[in-house]
C-alpha cells in the first residue's frame, strides 16, 4: 500500500499551478485535500510522475458573496464550508450536505473543488452544483473559462475539463425569497458514500405556488442526475398538489442508465433514490413554508 514514486511540486498560486500543469503535461496531477487521490495512489489505481500541490495556495482558498453569487475557491476545505456564516446565509444547501461527507477527519482536509473535480457519482457537492446550476471557473495557461454544471460532469470520475485545466472556483447562484432546501441520503454507515441520495431546492410565491424548483440525485448513475421532468410537473403547481412519493417516481423515471451491480441491483437503488427524493423534497418544502 505505498504509492509509486513521483516528483512533488508545491504551487505558490493558482497561476503557478496552471503553469506547472501546462509545462508538465499529462504526467502531472493536482493534489488538493488528497482524500480521494492519496488512497488511489496508495492502491496504485493511478500513478503520476508529478504531483502539483494546491493545498496551501492562498488564492485558491476563501468564500465570498458577490451580490447574487457565492464564490467558493476550489481548495477551500470542507470544514470551512461547513462552519461558514456566509455559506449558511447564501447557499444553505452546502451547509446541509457537508456533514454527510465522510467523517470530520476527512472534511478537515478534503476540499470542495477536489470533490467536484473528482466527480464521484455518489458525492454530495457535485449534486448541489448540478441542482443549483453552479458555474465552474476553470483556469489554464490558455486563460479562464466558465463551465455550466450541467456540462461539467460527464461520467464516473470524469469532467469536461482538459487535463491542463484546474478548477479555480465554484460560483453558486444564491436563491432568495421564500426558499427551502433539503437533502436526504441512504448509506450503510454514517460517513460512507451513499447508495443513493438527493438534494432539492424550492421557491414558493405568496400563494404557495411553486415558482422555482430543482432536484438532483447522486449515486444513481455515472454522474449527478437532474430530475427535469419532475421539476416541470412541479413548476406552477400548488404545495401538496403532487405528493412527495409521486415526485420521487417522476425523478427516477428520468434516469436513463441507472447503476447496476451485484450488490446493488438497479431496481433497489432506484427505489432508494425515489425515497430520498421524496424526503429531500418534503424537507425543502417545509423549510420554504416555515423558513
Amino acid at each position: 500500500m505505498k504509492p509509486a514514486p513521483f516528483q512533488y511540486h508545491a504551487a505558490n498560486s493558482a497561476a503557478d499551478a496552471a503553469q506547472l500543469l501546462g509545462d508538465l503535461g499529462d504526467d502531472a496531477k493536482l493534489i488538493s485535500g488528497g482524500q480521494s487521490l492519496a488512497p488511489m495512489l496508495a492502491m496504485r489505481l493511478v500513478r503520476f510522475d508529478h504531483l502539483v500541490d494546491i493545498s496551501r495556495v492562498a488564492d485558491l482558498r476563501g468564500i465570498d458573496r458577490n451580490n447574487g453569487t457565492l464564490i467558493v475557491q476550489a481548495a477551500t476545505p470542507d470544514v470551512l464550508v461547513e462552519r461558514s456564516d456566509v455559506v449558511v446565509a447564501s447557499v444553505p444547501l452546502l451547509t446541509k450536505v457537508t456533514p454527510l461527507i465522510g467523517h470530520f477527519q476527512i472534511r478537515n482536509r478534503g476540499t470542495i473543488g477536489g470533490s467536484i473535480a473528482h466527480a464521484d457519482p455518489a458525492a454530495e457537492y457535485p449534486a448541489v452544483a448540478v441542482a443549483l446550476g453552479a458555474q465552474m471557473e476553470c483556469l489554464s495557461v490558455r486563460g479562464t473559462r466558465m463551465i455550466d454544471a450541467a456540462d461539467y460532469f460527464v461520467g464516473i470520475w470524469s469532467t469536461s475539463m482538459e487535463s491542463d485545466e484546474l478548477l479555480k472556483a465554484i460560483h453558486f447562484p444564491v436563491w432568495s425569497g421564500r426558499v427551502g432546501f433539503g437533502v436526504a441520503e441512504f448509506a450503510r454507515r454514517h460517513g460512507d458514500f451513499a447508495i443513493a441520495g438527493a438534494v432539492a431546492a424550492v421557491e414558493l410565491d405568496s400563494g404557495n405556488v411553486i415558482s422555482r424548483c430543482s432536484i438532483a440525485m447522486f449515486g444513481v448513475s455515472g454522474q449527478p442526475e437532474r430530475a427535469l421532468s419532475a421539476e416541470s410537473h412541479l413548476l406552477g403547481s400548488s404545495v401538496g398538489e403532487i405528493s412527495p412519493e409521486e415526485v420521487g417516481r417522476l425523478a427516477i423515471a428520468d434516469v436513463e442508465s441507472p447503476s447496476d451491480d451485484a450488490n446493488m441491483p438497479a431496481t433497489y437503488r432506484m427505489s432508494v433514490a425515489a425515497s430520498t427524493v421524496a424526503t429531500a423534497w418534503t424537507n425543502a418544502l417545509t423549510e420554504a413554508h416555515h423558513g
Partner: protein
Amino acid sequence: MADTTVGIPTVSVTVNGVLRRGTPEPRKTLADFLRDDCELTGTHLGCEHGVCGACTIFMDGEAVRSCLVFAVQAEGADITTIEGLSAPDGTLSVVQKAMNEAHGLQCGFCTPGFVVSITALLRDNPDPSDEEIRQGLSGNLCRCTGYQGIIKAVKIAAGQSVDANGKAH
C-alpha cells in the same frame, strides 16, 4: 513551502513541540515519516487508505488521517501525535484515563486514532449527545471492543455520568 524543483525537498515539521527535519521521498506519507523518521510509532497504520482512522493525528490543530498526507506537504506544520497527548511525565490525558477506566480497548491497535479523534470531538463539542458521539466516532474502526466501552469512555471524559452499561443518566 517545500522546494518546488526536481529532487527531494527538505521538510521541517514540529512534532509534539520538537522541530524535526528530514528529506523524505515525496511518496512517503506523514504517517510513515512519523513512524520511521521520527521513531514515533504510536501512530498506527491499519488500512493506509483513509478508512480505518488508526493513523489519526492533529495537524495544525485539526484531526486528520496521516496516511493521506504526504510528509512533504506538512512543511511548517504543527503536529501532535498520541505521544504528545499525555503529560511529559507520562500522566495520561483525560481521554486516555477514560479509555482505561471504561475498557475502551482490547488489543489497542485502534486506540491512538480513537484517542486523537475523541480529543478533537470533545474540544469542539464538550457535551455531545449519544448520536453526536456515534457520528463523531464513525471515522474510526475497532475490530475488538464492539465500541460500547469506547462510547462509555467518551461520556466519562465529557464528565457525563454513566451506569455500568455506559448509558448516561
